[in-house]
């Protein structure tokens, strides 16, 4: 009786469907409906120790010892059915025996199935099924995430393999294309050298076209070959001490004629003394020639190109190529450093090119432990800057 409330046997069974009632001889004289169903031997009113191994607290076997452990947590394991375990506490009733307030001790969802338990076998307030649900759903979540990760990994492996095959194909094909092209350019050179006395003037123009188209194709093929080699990790730098000033001036010479044709002025800043770095000369030529060619190609007539070298923070070196040309929207800049991308297809049609130039330049700068960036806006010109780390600078500038 509690504040006028009576709790009867049925209430006890509802709150603790796995309870046990002991007499003073430790005989189990009554049991909750669920534990009675799981362990039918309880109907014979056996001694507690004959049905359960008392795992905790150890040594509590007779009634007095059990009662003395009333403040401790009990763990009982059924001798006939290893998966049936109870946890709870004992509540002695003076002179009458004791009640074990126990619940099933579950460690995973498989036990629900194995013991044939349903939700109705648990008291509403028993948190064990909630914990089992939590464990099961978390495990499902993990398995789900694992499956997705494996699928993503497989897709990535497939993409990497396809990309490698593509690079190998590009490399082989470019090599195959270059051989006959060299013959075409070579024979065009020969015919041009033979001169006007043996070749009719009109044919001479055709031969010039064959040669310039051949050289244009050769540039494209060389780009493809470079890209393929970089992607396959086969691009090896031949490093030496080089003066970037010399390389910049050579690059300026290469674009000078085109710049002159369109009245574009090229200015150098910071190259009045040697700018010495440890780098691959041919690669640096390629990088600077590419950036200068773009600066002229995408400039407006009468525009300006400035190439400058400056000390960057932490002692790094930054080389900038700035033009006053058509520029691009900042949003498309990241694309330009990816292979086969140009700002838009109209640019490709108007200005030509493979869309590989900046992608190759980026990789070549990165092979030198450097980084490259671009600032641009439509009709506001473009500045491409690449930075080489301090470790690449050599003491020639002193």
């Amino acid at each position: 009786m509690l504040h006028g409330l009576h709790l009867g046997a049925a209430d006890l069974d509802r709150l603790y469907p796995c309870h046990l009632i002991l007499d003073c001889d430790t005989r189990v004289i009554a049991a909750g409906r669920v534990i009675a169903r799981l362990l039918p031997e309880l109907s014979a009113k056996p001694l507690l120790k004959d049905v359960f191994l008392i795992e905790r607290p150890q040594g509590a076997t007779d009634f007095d010892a059990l009662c003395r452990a009333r403040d401790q947590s009990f763990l009982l394991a059924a001798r006939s059915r290893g998966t049936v375990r109870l946890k709870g506490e004992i509540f002695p009733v003076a002179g009458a025996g004791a009640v074990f307030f126990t619940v099933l001790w579950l460690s995973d969802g498989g036990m629900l199935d194995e013991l044939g338990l349903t939700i109705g076998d648990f008291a509403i307030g028993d948190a064990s099924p909630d914990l089992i649900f939590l464990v099961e759903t978390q495990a499902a979540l993990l398995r789900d995430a694992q499956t997705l990760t494996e699928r993503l990994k497989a897709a990535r492996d497939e993409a990497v393999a396809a990309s490698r095959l593509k690079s190998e194909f590009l490399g082989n094909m470019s090599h195959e294309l270059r051989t006959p092209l060299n013959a075409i350019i070579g024979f065009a050179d020969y015919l041009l050298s033979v001169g006007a006395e043996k070749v009719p003037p009109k044919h001479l123009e055709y031969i010039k076209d064959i040669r310039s188209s051949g050289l244009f194709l050769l540039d494209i093929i060389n780009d493809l070959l470079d890209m393929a080699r970089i992607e396959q990790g086969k691009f090896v730098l031949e490093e030496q001490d080089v003066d970037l000033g010399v390389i910049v001036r050579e690059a300026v010479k290469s674009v000078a004629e085109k710049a002159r044709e369109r009245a574009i002025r090229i200015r150098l800043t910071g190259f009045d003394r040697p700018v010495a770095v440890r780098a691959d000369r041919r690669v640096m030529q390629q990088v600077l020639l590419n950036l200068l060619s773009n600066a002229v190609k995408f400039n407006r007539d009468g525009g300006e190109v400035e190439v400058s070298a400056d000390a960057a923070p932490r002692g790094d070196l930054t080389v900038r190529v700035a033009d006053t040309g058509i520029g691009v929207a900042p949003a498309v800049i990241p694309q330009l450093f990816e292979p086969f991308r140009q700002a838009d297809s109209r640019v490709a049609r108007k200005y030509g090119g493979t869309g590989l130039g900046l992608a190759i330049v980026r990789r070549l700068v990165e092979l030198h432990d450097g980084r490259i960036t671009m600032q641009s806006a439509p009709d506001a010109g473009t500045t491409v800057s690449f930075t080489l780390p301090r470790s690449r600078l050599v003491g020639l500038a002193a």
Partner: protein
Amino acid sequence: MYGLVNKAMRELVVKAHGEPVWRKICAEAGYADTEFNSMHQYPDALTYQLVGAASKVLDTPAETLLETFGEYWTDFAQSTDFGRLMKFAGRTLLEFVQNLDQMHAKIKFSLPDLTPPSFRCSDVSEKGFRLHYYSTRQGLAPLVIGMIKGVAKMHRTPITIRRDKGRDEGLDHDEFVVTYA
């Protein structure tokens, strides 16, 4: 709705009509992906869009699809990690339905964003029972019919089920009559 529901729908369509048809349904529904993460919460609108798109692509009424899907759901859920938890809901169809709210309460413990429907049984007799279905979602009565059929099959209990009255008649819930065959 949790991705598990959309995942089941995907599996049903792929099994019956193949992957290309499912891709077509996703495209029609404006869903860029074709897969779902079971425990990820997706907008209800996506599930409705997928049902609408499936109805169009398969040229089948949405109600028929929902009922088929409901029936399939039980098989699907049993085949997932939740299979044994489903058995836990009850040993008979009636017990299962009566325990559904408690089951959902337990699942909500680990899936806190779950907004499950609520079920109540009345007029229980040896001939059957009346099922009361409460949900914040509209138009899913055919899904309930399919699901109850699926659960009945799981418990090897032949039944017939019909929608008796509901929100269309001004109630705040739908009522179904379940009769043991």
